[in-house]
């Protein structure tokens, strides 16, 4: 066996695939990229959807494929499956996203079915009733899951009355939604203006654009555009303790300020977050998982939304080590905010960030997701190369400055969901604790 770490081969350049783009007369922008790995095509349609009525928008996204004038829900699904495909819709406070994939030989059919639904979704009463119950049940089920409850508490604490503050409707609000309200919301908000369709697969980009124009050129409808107010920055305060009697684990959640992708500090912040806890080989994961075994899968990440970005820190820890886990988390945040990182750990984080970009862009699904996400911020694939250049150039001083500015534990909003009787005392030895109402 050879005992020495092998030297690197020469780095191979990231080659961006060629993209083609066309804005149709109805306002829909179509972006197509060829990636010839397998005979599939990935489809993402992003429709801006901010400030929509939450319960209605949630039920709309779940009922979109339940029938048109000419087709039942089962017919739509079975037709999609006949081209090996599936389409589904998902919602966040910024957009409605329809995503799916299928055999590339079935692209025309896939787009026809998409158009059928966009222009003719009927929201049949019995189907809406089914989806309404299903969504209400999912929300009730989520209400029994600690990860969900902790997220809800954190969002409320960070965003307050901003539309980002509540991202899941109450089951009762969903049960009150009527099919006519869904039809009205669809007419008002599901229109091609401002929407972006991304197609990635084993076909020439121009051909993909033509297929999209043929199928979706007739999608129309005016409607309103809504704009979100800027999201507030996290405002630090006492730790919010949400009681879950008998819990075997505590969910620790923190939010810290962050900047959008195009901000000059973004690359340095991303690197600082990686060094702290953003990947497995980070200080925090090494500390609370590898050294102490407090948790299975801790993570910290920068989350971008159109009205603002935030850095979140998430760990589910055994009840008896809740306060020690918070202590170590504050310590690692503080250590990076107060002292510059080593050159070696910065290099490692930098290589990880660059490699992740490369790997993410190497599959059809990865590329489609990236393109669609970028499009939501007005960016295109060339941003990938620009961001890679900024990651490559960020200096130790810049990363230290970003850590001091954004990772300071004094700026964190902290929420713990757990057995308050067991964890409340130890936590209040570390910080001010406020029980949730």
């Amino acid at each position, binding site marked *: 066996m050879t005992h020495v770490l092998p030297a690197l081969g020469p780095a191979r350049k990231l080659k961006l695939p060629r993209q083609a783009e066309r804005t149709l007369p109805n306002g829909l922008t179509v972006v197509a990229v060829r990636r010839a790995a*397998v005979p599939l095509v990935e489809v993402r349609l992003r429709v801006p959807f901010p400030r929509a009525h939450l319960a209605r928008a949630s039920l709309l996204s779940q009922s979109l494929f339940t029938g048109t004038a000419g087709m039942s829900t089962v017919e739509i699904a079975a037709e999609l499956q006949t081209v090996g495909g599936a389409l589904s819709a998902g919602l966040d406070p910024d957009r409605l996203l329809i995503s799916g994939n299928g055999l590339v030989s079935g692209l025309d059919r896939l787009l026809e079915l998409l158009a059928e639904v966009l222009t003719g979704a009927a929201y049949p009463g019995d189907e809406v009733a089914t989806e309404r119950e299903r969504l209400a049940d999912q929300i009730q089920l989520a209400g029994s899951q600690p990860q969900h409850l902790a997220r809800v508490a954190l969002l409320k604490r960070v965003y307050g009355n901003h539309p980002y503050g509540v991202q899941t409707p109450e089951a009762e609000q969903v049960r009150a939604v009527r099919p006519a309200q869904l039809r009205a919301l669809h007419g008002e908000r599901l229109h091609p203006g401002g929407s972006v369709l991304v197609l990635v697969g084993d076909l020439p980009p121009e051909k993909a654009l033509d297929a999209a124009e043929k199928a979706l050129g007739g999608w129309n409808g005016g409607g309103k555009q809504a704009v979100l107010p800027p999201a507030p920055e996290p405002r630090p305060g006492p730790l919010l303790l949400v009681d879950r009697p008998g819990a075997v684990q505590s969910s620790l959640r923190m939010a810290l300020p962050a900047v959008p992708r195009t901000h000059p500090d973004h690359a340095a912040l991303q690197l600082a977050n990686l060094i702290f806890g953003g990947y497995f080989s980070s200080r925090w994961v090494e500390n609370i998982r590898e050294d102490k075994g407090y948790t299975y899968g801790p993570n910290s990440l920068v989350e971008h939304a159109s009205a603002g970005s935030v850095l979140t820190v998430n760990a589910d820890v055994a009840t008896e080590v809740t306060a020690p886990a918070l202590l170590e988390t504050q310590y690692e945040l503080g250590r990076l905010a107060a002292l510059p990182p080593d050159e070696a750990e910065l290099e490692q984080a930098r290589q990880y960030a660059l490699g992740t970009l490369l790997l993410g862009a190497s599959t059809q699904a990865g590329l489609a997701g990236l393109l669609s996400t970028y499009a939501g911020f007005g960016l295109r694939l060339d941003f990938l190369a620009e961001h890679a250049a900024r990651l490559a150039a960020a200096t130790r001083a810049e990363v230290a400055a970003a850590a001091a500015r954004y990772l300071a534990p004094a700026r964190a909003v902290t929420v713990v969901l757990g057995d308050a009787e067991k964890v409340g005392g130890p936590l209040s030895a570390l910080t001010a604790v406020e029980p949730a109402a």
Partner: protein
Amino acid sequence: MTGFPWPIETSTLDNGLRVIASPDHGAPVVAVNLWYDVGSRHEPAGQTGFAHLFEHLMFEGSVHVGKTEHMSYVQGAGGSLNATTNPDRTNYFETLPAEHLELALWLEADRMGGLVPALTQEKLDNQREVVKNERRQRYDNVPYGDAWLRLLPLLYPPGHPYHHATIGSMEDLNAADLQTFKDFHTTYYAPNNAVLTVAGDAEPERVYELAKKYFGQLPPREHIPPAPEGGLPKAGGAVRQEVTGAVPAPRVYLSYRSHPFGSPGYDATTVLAAVLGSGRGSRLFQRLADGRRLAQPDNIGSYGVDLAHAPAPLIVSATARPGVPAADLEAGLVEVVASMVTEPVTDAELERAKALLTSSWWRQVSTLGGRADTLGRYATLFRAPERVAAQLDGWRSVTAERVAEVAAEILDEDARVTLTYLPEESA
């Protein structure tokens, strides 16, 4: 069309390590994958969960790699990595920029050949705690989360290699000592018990050269004890279990023993499962979620679990709509399952099922990591990596008659395992 339009080149080192190279220069990325022919089926009573806990220990350093350095080297090279354990095998894999291929092979060789001297009590204790948290997070703290843990002992008798779930029992893990884990590595982590696959931007000659350089001097292991036999006696009647707990609605699982993964019977079972329960076009969805409205539209379906060393499980499940008693849901499921024997599968059903299997196959091999893992699987299980190319045709050639035949054979109500979850308040 073949299901694997990329080259498959193979070579075997003198110590028995089988090496597969599958070049694709579409992106400057390589995937490295090692299948070790050891899984939870090898664990004797009292040592359940060992294969999986061992997988964790493989990331804790080896003779030339410090604790946690394995991760930091790969991630520091821009790569991603992981490992999984199931009843059949343990796999380790990383995808990274192509220029770092050599690093990945060096790391994998170091932990294949040099893990034991680096294993300490402190590492064992630490990873034992991590695994306990994994069990809480994935199985114990989740409604219906332990269904798989309950089904296995009902499907397979004591002493059978699939009798227990891979996560194992916490009691067994607590009792484990360091020497047992050292012996585990010595016994199973040998070059002649593994398959190394490299897919992506690397030429086969280069892969063989590097494999020889880093793995070539590791000694083979003479005798590797086989897992217990996976044969099954004729089922001795239907089995039922009811669980009352913190679940939001009744859920019913029906399960059957089918055929081992890789056999023509299992290919037919896979098509059967897709017709019966894959997506909204399936019989289960159309009849129970849409038609009679007994089941919620979520979590209704059927699928085979791809295990190769004994008749693999076919699992059918559904969750009751509000107000629907578990018994009604169960009766509905039983009726739709029986229809697979009595009502011929239509051309449209067959076409839909095959299109779904085709697109899911392409998704599986669309990433280099998925491709390398699939090659490693066929090489380990059947000693024939080239069989990957035939899998798609294996499904496509299944006829309606064949589905009916397999349905009649495996969907026997005397061999059915029924697991029912009931919410606490209705108890």
